[in-house]
Each structure stands twice: as structure tokens, then as C-alpha cells.
């Protein structure tokens, strides 16, 4: 059984949200994919307690 979400991955052109390395986004674009680059930063300065708290609040 194949779900339509997975089929949607190979049945239509890739639209990618690239979280992290910018070179990945650059190379995806070079190959014709549509890409939104996310310049990710560690949430709450990497403080795990604060991350957990924010996850609950948001």
C-alpha cells in the first residue's frame, strides 16, 4: 500500500525546504528543484530546558 503523500514525492516536481547547509540548497536549485533555504540556528541558544519550555508554549 502506497500512500498519496509518498507518491506526491515522486509524482510531482520537488519543492524542498532545506534546513541547514546552504550548499545543499544551491545544488538542489542547480538541478531545477524549487527550494526555500532556512538559515537554522539552535533554538534557545542550545539550552535544552528552554527548548522544551518553548515547545510547550508554541
Amino acid at each position, binding site marked *: 500500500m*502506497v500512500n498519496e503523500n509518498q507518491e506526491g514525492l*515522486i509524482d510531482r516536481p520537488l519543492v524542498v525546504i532545506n534546513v*541547514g547547509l546552504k550548499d545543499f540548497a544551491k545544488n538542489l536549485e542547480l538541478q531545477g528543484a524549487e527550494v*526555500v533555504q532556512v*538559515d537554522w540556528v539552535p533554538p534557545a541558544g542550545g539550552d535544552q530546558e528552554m527548548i522544551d519550555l518553548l515547545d510547550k508554549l508554541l
Partner: protein
Amino acid sequence: MSESESSMHAGIAVRKNQYYDSVFLMGINNHLSEAPGVEQTAVVMGTDANKRLLADIGIAGPEIDSATANDLVVAVLSRSGNVTEGVINSLDEALKSMAAKSPASDARTLRAGFEQRPDANLAVFSIPGDYVADEAGKALEAGMNVFIFSSNVSLERELELKQIGQDKGLLVMGPDCGTSILNGVGIGFANAVRRGTIGAVGPSGTGLQEFTTQVHNAGGGISHAIGTGSNDLSDAIGGLTTLAAIRLLEADPDTELIAVIAKPPEAETLAALHAQTKAFSKPLIGCFLGLNQSSVGGFNPFQLARTIDEASGMALTAAGIAGAKEVLQDRESGQDLAKAAVAGWSDEQRYLRGIFAGGTFCYQSQQILRDAGIDVYSNSPIQPGLKLDHLDISRQHTLVDMGDEHYTLGKLHPMIDAAERAKRILAEAADPEVAILLLDFIFGYNAASDPVGDLMDSLQEAKAIRSKRGGDLTIVASVCGTKPDPQDMDLQIEMLKECGVLVFPSNARATAFCQRLLERR
């Protein structure tokens, strides 16, 4: 502290709330370390792990203690206070000039990205492993398939993500997924290959790269190649992504046959693969590296291939591509080359040392040599009992996977940063008993832009070290890539040949050649 260390001048700079990705940091590090007189530089984010690495090289202080994962930490060591100060003072200019080459995005969170493209069908993650499971979970909740390049995610979290994917009908490629090619678009470390009817699935990035490039180079094409992450075929994960990927390709009208390139699945996972694929209509080829020929019974409905070369040859034949023979041909060729190489060795030269960027190549080479009766030590051994006691010191025949976390802690993968491989090549060349160096060069998107150039100095130096002692160091290399790859593969091969390197179009063929050399000695 030794006398030499005590004469060092250390400079430290911390830039609060300036976060950069690892490739950017490598660029800055390379730039700073090129300044005349600099002995060592470190350019890292202020994570606890990085702070420990800095402390190991004697760099510590209150400003480092208070740095966080969001703060840039730069350390410079030189023998002159002026040099150190000058390099530290040049930091902000270097950051500015490098940042100008890749403009900042206004999206800083997954949510912001998704708001820009709510029709996104894939989220790709290459962020530190500590954070990636949470972020990937959010992407799945939002209905996106995910590709997780990051490693260092626990098996529990991986299973959790893959179960969410299963429930929602979404594909979870990774964690530790190096390569996928979907709809002709390569994600992560992938090569430029033509589209076609051959589908591929596998946990190993380099395994998929070797398979897809061989198919392309022989005239065939790839429908989709789906990476699963390195742990997928363990019983802890149960092959959830492998099964989902095979089902997807079975249902895909553009795919005629499916090849799985992997280490052998664990027992329960193998049984699940068998149960769930036996009624499928498309041919299934399985290349399960490291498999003992005695245990081939349980692998129905897979047609088994011993090497990636064999798997690509079988796939090409099944797809009706004429180039298949070329992939399968070999073993008898190169006899003259072998004879000439061995004739150049001195009496003391006897051992093979493989220094690999691709973990799968290290593994496949061990399998080929094991099957030829040649014992090989490794940091990642195929046979228990042949693990190196000390991962930095080779013994007898040794093959090293330089992508192992022992060598990459706080550093980039050797497919991007050749520095650690260069050091190891020189260390092997200094061993008087070494006769052969076996290397792999991997091209494609997101790999180093000049993989051969990055190692050229150390290859020439290695040859020179050997010549001084008398004798000749035989350097054997395989290349994994295609002509349309960004690196200009033909030029890269030409550079290797000019340096006297014997170049082969696959890891299996390069290894078979090494085997012949050792048998001739």
C-alpha cells in the same frame, strides 16, 4: 605543557549570537590557517563537545566557558604574538567576505520556511544531530517527507520518526542518509545521472552513488534512488524505510526493477523483507555486502549480487542496456600493469593500506579481499578479530574508513574536507613495509569541488618519501562519478594519472587489481 607548546601564542575570539553552518566554518578555518606563521586554527560553534575538543589542544578560558551553541568560537595558535593578533583581527573581515558569497535567508525556522512554501513535499535537514529529531518530527507533522543527512540520532528517536512516517504515509530518509535521487534531482551526496527505469534503495550513500554512476556510465538510467539511513536494516528499526521505498518503487510506473545495496539485514528484518516483497511483480536485485556465501538461502525473492559492479551489471542486463558487459568485464585485464607495479617494489614492501572517504568502499574492498583469502585489518572490520587496536596506527594489510566518527569528530566528512585523509596518506607512506595505497575519489553534488587537487600534494609527497628509501609506492584509486558531475571527472582522472596513480572506474575493480598485486608478490 611541553616546551614547544609553551612557546605558542594563543588567541581566542568569541562572536556572540553568530551561528554558521559547518561548511561555512570550514571555509573560514581554511582562510585563517593559510596566514603565514599560523600553526593551528579552530573555527567552531561553542557547543559543549567543541569546547572539550578545544580544551584537548590547550585552548580554554572564561570567554570559551560562557560560549553557547549559538556563539562562534575562533582559536589561533602561532609562534608569534603579532601573527596571532593579526589573524584574530582579520576574522570579521573574513566572515563578512565569506557571508557575501551566500546571502542570508530570511527564514530562520522550519515553520517560516513552510509558510513560504506550504506546498513543499520534502524537508532536508543537515543540522546538528542533537536537534534534528525534533525538527524532523515537526516536518512530518506538517505533512512533509523528510531527508535527514545529520547523524547522531538515537535508535529510539529514529524508530519514533519512522513510525510517524509510516502512520502518515511519509518517507523518512535517514537519519545518517547520505544520498537520494528523486525525480532526477540528487539530494545530499549524489551524482548527475540520466533518468531511466532502474530504481535503487539503500542505507549507504556511497553504495547508492557507486550503483547509480555505474548505471549511468554504462548507458542506463535511474528512476529514483532512495536512501534509507544507515540503521534502517537493523532489527531495532525493522527496515521501515527500506520497505516503504521498495513499495513506492513497485507502484511507480517509471521503475522496471529495483536494486537494494546494503549490508545484510538483521534476521527479523530480513524475514519482514521476504514476507512483504515476495508477491511483488518487479525484479529485485540484492547486493548485501559482507554476506557470507554460506548464508545466501534466506534472501528470496532477491537475485543476489556479490559486488556493486555485479548489481549494476545485473540491473543493466535486466533493463536491456547494452553496456552491461563493460561493467562486468575485467578480472583478466591489467596483468601488465600489475607486473610493472610489483617489479618496482623493494624487498621490504609488502602491505596494502586503503584510506577511504566512502565507508561502503572500505567494506566492499574488505569483502573482496576476504573472499580471496587475504586478511585485512580495519577500524570497521568485516571479520571480528581484525579490528585495529589503535585506529590511528595501521598493521599489516589495513583498510580505514576515514568517515568513521573517530576521525570526523568536530570535523567535516572526508568527502568534503580531505585534511585528515592527507595526514593518514603521509603516515602510511612513512611505513617502510607499505607497497600499495588504495584510495577512492567520490565526485558529485556537495562533494569537494576538487577532490583530487585536495590530495595531490600528499600523493606526490608520499611517492617522494618512498623513492628516498628506494622502491616505488603503488597508488591505486577508484573514481565514483559521471561526466555531467560538477567536478569535471575527466580532468580529475587526468590529474591522477599524471601523478602516476593507477585509476579504475569502480571500487571493486580497483580492489581486484590490488588483490592481483598482492598475489604476484
